[in-house]
Each structure stands twice: as structure tokens, then as C-alpha cells.
């Protein structure tokens, strides 16, 4: 697996201090308040968190896909040394789809309903793969049009779509959700992008279809050398699919660690609560939940945004945002319970994290 070399190789995608605000009727809402993560070559990174924590906004702001009116983005997004945040919308275009691709939650609604699948994938093939079209043309001695069709056929078969001729003539409403997501994967991976952002890519699918799609995604990306940012609210999928997990809470990544460590030894109280809320067969225990609601982003709590719901809250948590602390080389957590510098200690609280873990 990738864990052994993540620390040595250069990240393909590096997101630094990403901040996004939206205008709202009650003033500016800070959706992201400094998101940091790195994605290493060949890696699958899960971005998990509750609905509304800013996972999708993170994904969209990487490709500058947020609505343009009134949205402010700050920070840095490095792809291979190039800061995408500095690019204009037009300059961003060659990156979209070619180097960073994206697939969305509802596969059917993300396919244009008035064009056939063929018309849509042909356009993308002509856009991305002019060299490959020429190569296929020469190799098989066929016309450019036939070459495009040939490439489409190969790519369809690659994602396990059969009966290609019929599918190419079909519309989005004529195919199933699973087929639609396979098609979306085929189009997203057309140009073997460095990064694929999968935003809840399997959440709308049946469980059985889901696992097929996950396996497909994993093996295809490994073959093409594409790293994945896998956005999900499903911890089970994150565990099954990903090398590392980043846990997001209210616009910030609160804990990042290799999958194994996060499930065996979660550090942040939010991560602990999240894991305690996952149902386990045969445990016989009542399902735990995290008390309280996700914070109102127009009027967020001061300091650590999790503090009103945190069972181990300390005085300092209410004042200042906790910095990222290293548990070890690969495990970071943004919480005052850890690290050398602790500005205050709560009465009746030990430094030992409580709850699910006892080391």
C-alpha cells in the first residue's frame, strides 16, 4: 500500500489554508476556515464529515467551480507546483477534466439529458485525446470518426459497460444509476488525470452496485496512476476504500491519519464521536450520538468550532482555534488535548483522551 512512501514522495495536490466565504442574508458566511491537506501519488484520501461540513465546497473550490458571484476564495491549491488559485477561469480550463477530474453524487443528473452518451463522450475524447485518436487512426487505418468511436468503445469496456453500440445511442434517462456512474467514471478517467475528486460518488447507488463501483474505481485509478480525493459521509466506505482519512468538521480538517490509525486510535473528540455513532453488528450496545447540532456558519462558535458539542471541552477551546498537532509523522490532529503546547487544562480533565480509546 501507499502508506510506506507517502512521507517521502512529493504530493500531487497540496491544499494550503483554503478559505471560502459566501455572502448570505446575515452577512458573510465562512464555509471553509483554512483547510489543509496533501494528496500523494497513487493515494486514495477520504474526506469524511457530516453534511454541511464543507466537503463539497472544498472539492469544488479546488477546480474553481463555485458560483462566481460574491464567493471569496483564499489560500493555495498546488497541483504539481502550480498554484491553481492564481489562475483565471479561462486559464483553469485546461486543468479541468484533463488533470483534475471530478465525479458527482447523482450520476444520472450529471449527464446532460438531451444528448446521447455517445455525443457527450465523443466531444470529450476529441477534446482530450487528439494524439491517441491519431495513433488509433494509423494503427487501425480508419477515419478520425471511427477512431473516436473505437476509443469510446475501449473506455466503455474498461469500466465494465457492455452492449456499447446501444449505450452510445442512449440517453441518461434510459440507463441505470450504476451504468451511469460507470459511464461517468469512464469519462472522468479518459485523459488519465493526476487527481480524481469523487464527491459522494457512490452515495446515491444501491449497496451491491456501490461495492462494484468502488472496486472498479480503485483498480482503474491504480492502473492509471490517478490519486483520489474520496469525499464521503460513510465511514465504512472510507475504511474499505482509502489509504488515509481526513475528518472534516465545520470548515476545517480536524484529524488526518492513515485509515488504520484513525479507526483504531482516533484522537479528536469529534472523530471519536463519529466512530461511536457507527452501528456495529453484535455489539449489543446502544448507538451513541454526538449531542448538539452542527454549528450555524453565519454565527460560528469562537475558538474550536466543535467546543459546544465536545465532551472534553477546556477553557482555551472557547477562545482560540487549536493548531494542527503531530501525533506522529502521519497523524495530525487539531485539538488542545494533544501536543506540547497546552495553554490551559480543564478542571477534572486529564490530558489522556477519554471515551472510546484507552491506550
Amino acid at each position: 500500500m501507499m502508506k510506506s512512501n507517502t512521507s517521502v514522495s512529493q504530493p500531487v495536490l497540496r491544499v494550503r489554508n483554503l478559505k471560502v466565504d459566501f455572502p448570505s442574508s446575515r452577512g458573510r458566511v465562512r464555509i471553509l476556515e483554512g483547510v489543509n491537506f496533501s494528496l500523494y501519488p497513487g493515494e486514495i484520501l477520504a474526506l469524511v464529515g457530516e453534511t454541511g461540513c464543507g466537503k463539497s465546497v472544498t472539492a469544488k473550490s479546488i477546480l474553481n467551480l463555485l458560483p462566481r458571484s460574491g464567493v471569496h476564495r483564499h489560500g493555495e491549491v498546488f497541483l504539481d507546483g502550480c498554484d491553481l488559485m492564481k489562475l483565471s477561469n479561462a486559464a483553469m480550463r485546461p486543468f479541468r477534466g484533463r488533470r483534475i477530474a471530478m465525479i458527482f453524487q447523482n450520476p444520472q443528473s450529471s449527464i446532460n439529458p438531451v444528448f446521447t452518451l455517445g455525443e457527450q463522450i465523443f466531444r470529450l475524447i476529441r477534446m482530450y485525446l487528439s494524439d491517441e485518436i491519431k495513433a488509433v487512426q494509423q494503427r487501425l487505418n480508419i477515419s478520425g470518426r471511427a477512431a473516436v468511436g473505437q476509443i469510446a468503445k475501449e473506455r466503455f469496456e474498461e469500466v465494465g459497460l457492455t452492449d456499447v453500440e446501444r449505450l452510445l445511442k442512449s440517453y441518461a434517462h434510459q440507463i441505470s444509476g450504476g451504468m451511469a456512474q460507470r459511464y461517468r467514471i469512464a469519462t472522468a478517467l479518459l485523459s488519465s488525470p493526476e487527481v480524481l475528486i469523487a464527491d459522494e460518488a457512490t452515495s446515491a447507488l444501491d449497496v451491491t452496485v456501490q461495492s462494484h463501483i468502488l472496486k472498479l474505481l480503485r483498480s482503474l485509478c491504480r492502473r492509471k496512476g490517478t490519486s483520489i480525493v474520496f469525499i464521503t459521509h460513510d465511514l465504512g466506505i472510507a475504511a474499505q476504500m482509502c489509504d488515509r482519512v481526513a475528518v472534516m468538521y465545520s470548515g476545517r480538517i480536524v484529524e488526518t491519519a492513515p485509515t488504520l490509525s484513525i479507526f483504531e486510535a482516533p484522537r479528536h473528540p469529534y472523530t471519536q464521536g463519529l466512530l461511536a455513532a457507527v452501528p456495529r453488528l453484535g455489539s449489543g450496545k446502544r448507538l451513541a450520538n454526538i449531542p448538539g447540532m452542527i454549528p450555524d456558519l453565519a454565527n460560528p462558535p469562537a475558538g474550536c468550532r466543535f467546543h459546544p458539542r465536545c465532551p472534553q471541552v477546556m477553557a482555551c477551546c472557547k477562545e482560540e482555534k487549536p493548531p494542527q498537532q503531530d501525533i506522529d509523522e502521519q497523524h495530525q490532529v487539531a485539538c488542545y488535548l494533544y501536543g506540547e503546547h497546552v495553554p490551559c487544562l480543564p478542571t477534572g480533565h486529564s490530558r489522556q483522551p477519554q471515551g472510546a480509546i484507552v491506550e
Partner: protein
Amino acid sequence: MSLVPFLSRRLIGLAVMLVALSALVFFFSRSIPGDVAAMYIGGMAKPEQIERARQELGLDQPLTLQYVKYMKKLLSGDLGISLRTHRPVFQDLLEKIPMSMEVVLWAIALAMVLGIGFGGLAALRQGTWIDEGIKWLSSAAVSIPIFFLALLLQLIFFNLLGWFPLQGRIDTFLEFSNPLELVTGFSLIDSLLTGNHAAFFNVAWHMVLPVLSLIAYPLGLITRLTRSSLLEVMSQDYILAARASGIRESVLFFRYGLRNALSPVLTVVGLSVALTLLATFYVEIIFNWPGIGYYALTAILSLDYPVLMGVTLMIGTVYVVANTSMDILRRIVDPRIK
């Protein structure tokens, strides 16, 4: 796409609607007080002459029987005889319909092209002064009463500026020097077919103000609908997905967006045809345009019920034909429509 069952369903629908419509108009127009026979025979008639006319027209028979007779004749294409002009209604309609449709179709075609263009532009420049201006103008266009707009246009373009004629279809002297020959009844087409360029430009010149008066409502409606429909489409997942795959903004907007936004717009175009045909009633009277509106108005005033029936059935047919053709277009544009 199976058009045959769709069209046959539509034809049956048309027949049912026309029967209902004819019954409604027949019984309503006949229950208006007024002696139809006296109207038919003209002023200064003796009572026995009126009585003879009543028998001749079958007006002494029960109303239901008269209706059945009327419908029987209708099936063989006979719409009866105008009580006022004593000419066959069918022949009159054949002459008048093209004159009105010429103006209506120009208005609709221009409203469609301009409306989609302006609506698209407003959506593309959402929130800018262009958008605000187009929104304001289209609201004004929908709200202004057509007769008032027609009078206003006359005031400005004839009275103040003198750019366009006050009324009529062609200048009187041209009617003698270069008379229109009847081929299709559409004067612009006829004058082109017969090489009568002088008449062509003269008729077109006369047509400008009536078309402008008629265009306002459908143009405003289509502009507003195109704008809102396009904005909704542009916020859909498939547009986001296409943008994420690096497709050019112009392609996104004009190929993907517009194509998806067109379906509701086409429905409104179909509905506007009938509305505009009704609006020509005012416009033709104001501009003294010898079309169906003028013909129908005089028929209403003189209780000329065969003409009223003919006009109503004709408008009903145009309505269904317009909507059916728009539905066919929608099916071509949007494969989801079954």
C-alpha cells in the same frame, strides 16, 4: 420516436375540441337577443319578407335541430353563408386568414428569435445592468395593453416621425399600378412570386407597426421564460459536471444550456400563436388591416353567427395545430418527452 400514434391522438383531440367549441359558440351566439332574419334581409323589410327569410335560413326550427344541420354541412366543408355579406364563409375565411396569419407569424417568428436571444443574453449577464434592462423591458412589454401600444406606435412613428404609414396594407396608388395577384393569399409571398417588388416593399413597410404592436406580448413572455429557464438549467448538475470536465463556457451556455432550456419556451411559443391571433383583432382594427379580426368584429356586431362559428373553429384549429407543431419540436429538442 413514434409520431403516428401521437399525431392521431392529437387529431382526435382536435375533433373533440372543435365539436365542443362549435356547440358552445352556436348556442351562445344564438341566445343573444336580436333578430337574425331581420339582419339577413336588411333594413326597411316587410314582416312577411323577414318571415320568408326566417324559413329560408331554417331559423324557425328548434335550435338543436339547427345545430345538427349546421354540423352536417360542416362535415362537408360548408361553413354556411354570411348573413351580412351573403358570401360563403369558407371563401371569406380563405381570403382573410392568410392576411392575418402573415402578421401573426412574423410577430411570433421575430418574438421567438429575439426573445430567445434577449433571454439568453440576460441570463448570461445575470445581475448586470443588461440583465436588469432586459427584465424591465420584458415586464413592460408583457404588461402594456396591445391597443394602447398600437396607438402609441402610430403617434410616434406616423405622427411625430413620419417613418411608417398610419394604416392600411398597401398604398392606394400601388393597388392600381402594381396590383397584388392572389396566389397563396400571403401578400409578401405573392408579391415575391409574381416579381412585384414595389408591392413587396410597400406591404412590408405597412406591416412594420402592426407586427411591432403584436410582438410585444410574446416577446416579453419568451424573453422572461428563456431567462429563467436558462438560469435554472445552468445550475443543474450536468452543467457543473460539464464545466468540471473543461468544456468551454460558450459551449456550455449556447449548446448545452440553451438546448435544455428550450422545451418550456417552445410550449409558450405555441400558446402565443393563439393569443397573438386574438390580439390581431385590436391591431387590425387600429391599423385598418383587412384580416380576420376586422371581419370577425363586424360579424359580432351584426350577429352574423355563421361567420362567428367559422372564425371560432378556425382559431381553435390554429391553436391546436400551433401547439401540436411545438410539441413535435419539443420532442426533437428533448428526448425525455414521451
